């Protein structure tokens, strides 16, 4: 229930809208204002702000209305508009719904200016590539301006001061008013016909936009563009440009500036010549000096000044090689010698004398053994022989005869053991100790047997 007292925002907005729509004044408003925040929407509607020094209002001009306007609204443009004020509900914003729009008075000239500028620009008359160079040292200058007034005097004074070498011819023209444009065009054409000038200065002193207007005329612009002579434009103030300024080959802010651009300064020229001459001298002298230094550098080079150096290295190399050769060869020989010496030591240790001596000793021993063994053998045999001989001697059966026994034998050697073996008259042998007796038996005496 308590909420019944509260409105919705939409309700409030709608209420305000109704209130505004009931006001007849707001239904048909005429405004003089400047455009800003201009936005030509892609769907054709124009949205912008209209303002004066203190206030602003949002405005919209629907495509159905803006299709008929003869200029292109732009920011900063002063315009006269007719429309009604209403509310744009979604944002709760009041705005002016514009129905017609015209440029304001001064805004019309500006517009014409901009539009011509745009046109000529598109034609290429401002093309920097088309611009002719201003000669550095002109000998004859044409000045298209009013023969009276400060401008011509400024120009002449400046030229005289800077470059008295140049000739100046003046084309007196009207620089304001209806006939101004044709007068300027004619002068430019005449100057071109005369074909005497290195450069033209075209212009006048400053003034209001209306006073300067002839320099915004298309005819003047085209005459300037057509001119074979390079043209310096010198119109108005430093801040304002005219169409002529854009078309001219060079734009000077003031007539004095134009004169300065048209001619060099004699002082500067003298300085320039001096500078060039000095540079010439310095550069050439520098070249000579540099080359001298370069040569000197080369001459100073070690290899060049002390050519013996080239040899010294080689001499040292050679010495080294020779020395090395000698050293290596000596070393080589010594190694061979050492090898030989070593083997000789070993060889010396193998001297056969020792072998010989050993053999000798061995031989002597064998010799001695041989001799000894033989002698022993012989002595042994001798001894055993002696023993046997002794025994034999002892067993000698004839030994008893030494005591006087005798052995009688028959002539045939038969031992006579019995008397009966003999008869007297027999010849018998009787062996004694030291010989045998030849005997004859004389008688026999028989005895007792022993």
């Amino acid at each position, binding site marked *: 229930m308590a909420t019944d007292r509260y409105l919705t925002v939409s309700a409030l907005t709608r209420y305000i809208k109704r209130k505004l729509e009931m006001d007849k004044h707001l239904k048909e408003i005429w405004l003089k204002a400047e455009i800003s925040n201009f936005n030509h929407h892609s769907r054709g509607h124009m949205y912008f702000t209209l303002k004066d020094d203190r206030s602003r209002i949002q405005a919209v001009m629907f495509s159905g209305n803006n299709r008929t306007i003869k200029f292109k609204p732009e920011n900063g443009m002063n315009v006269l508009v007719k429309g009604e004020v209403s509310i744009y509900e979604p944002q709760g914003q009041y705005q002016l719904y514009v129905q017609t729009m015209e440029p304001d008075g001064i805004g019309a000239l500006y517009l014409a200016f901009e539009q011509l500028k745009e046109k000529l620009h598109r034609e290429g008359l401002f093309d920097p590539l088309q611009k002719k160079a201003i000669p550095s040292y002109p000998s004859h200058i044409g000045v298209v301006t009013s023969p009276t007034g400060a401008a011509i005097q400024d120009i002449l004074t400046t030229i005289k001061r800077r470059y008295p070498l140049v000739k100046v*011819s003046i084309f007196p023209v009207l620089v304001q008013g209806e006939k101004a444009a044709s007068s300027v065009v004619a002068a430019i054409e005449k100057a071109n016909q005369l074909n005497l000038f290195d450069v033209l200065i075209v212009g006048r002193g400053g003034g209001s936009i209306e006073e300067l207007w002839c320099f915004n005329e298309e005819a003047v612009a085209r005459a300037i563009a057509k001119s074979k002579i390079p043209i310096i434009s010198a119109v108005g103030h430093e801040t304002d440009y005219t169409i002529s300024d854009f078309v001219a080959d060079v734009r000077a802010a003031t007539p004095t500036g134009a004169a300065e651009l048209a001619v060099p300064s004699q002082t500067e020229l003298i300085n320039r010549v001096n500078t060039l*001459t000095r540079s*010439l001298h310095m550069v050439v002298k520098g070249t000579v000096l540099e080359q001298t230094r370069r040569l000197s550098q080369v001459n100073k080079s070690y290899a060049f000044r002390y050519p013996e150096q080239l040899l010294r290295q080689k001499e040292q190399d050679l010495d080294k090689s020779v020395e090395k050769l000698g050293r290596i060869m000596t070393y080589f020989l010594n190694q061979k010698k050492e090898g030989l010496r070593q083997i000789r030591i070993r060889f010396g240790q193998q001297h056969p004398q020792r072998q010989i001596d050993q053999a000798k000793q061995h031989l002597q021993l064998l010799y001695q053994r041989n001799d000894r063994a033989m002698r022993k053998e012989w002595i042994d045999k001798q001894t055993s022989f002696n023993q046997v001989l002794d025994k034999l001697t002892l067993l000698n059966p004839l030994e008893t005869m030494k005591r006087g026994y005798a052995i009688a034998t028959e002539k045939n050697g038969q031992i006579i053991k019995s008397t009966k073996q003999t008869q007297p008259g027999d010849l018998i042998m009787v062996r004694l100790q030291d010989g045998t007796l030849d005997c004859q038996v004389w008688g026999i005496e028989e005895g007792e047997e022993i």
Partner: protein
Amino acid sequence: MTNDHDDKSAELSFEEAMQQLEKIVEKLEEGDVPLEKAINYYQEGMKLSKLCSEKLTKVEGQMEQIVNEQGTFEPFIVQEEE
């Protein structure tokens, strides 16, 4: 030769002489000029310098002229501003 050269130089305008001098100095400043050429340039440059110098100092009092509608010249007297 000197005469020849002088004559030829005499035909040069101040502008041409200056330009030639500048070109010579430029070339020399660019470096890389062979020594023998450099001395030739030097000689040429010195001559041009003299020429320019003479032309600059020899000021002729030029008069301003008015070109009238017929395209003829009349001496110009500065009119006081109206």
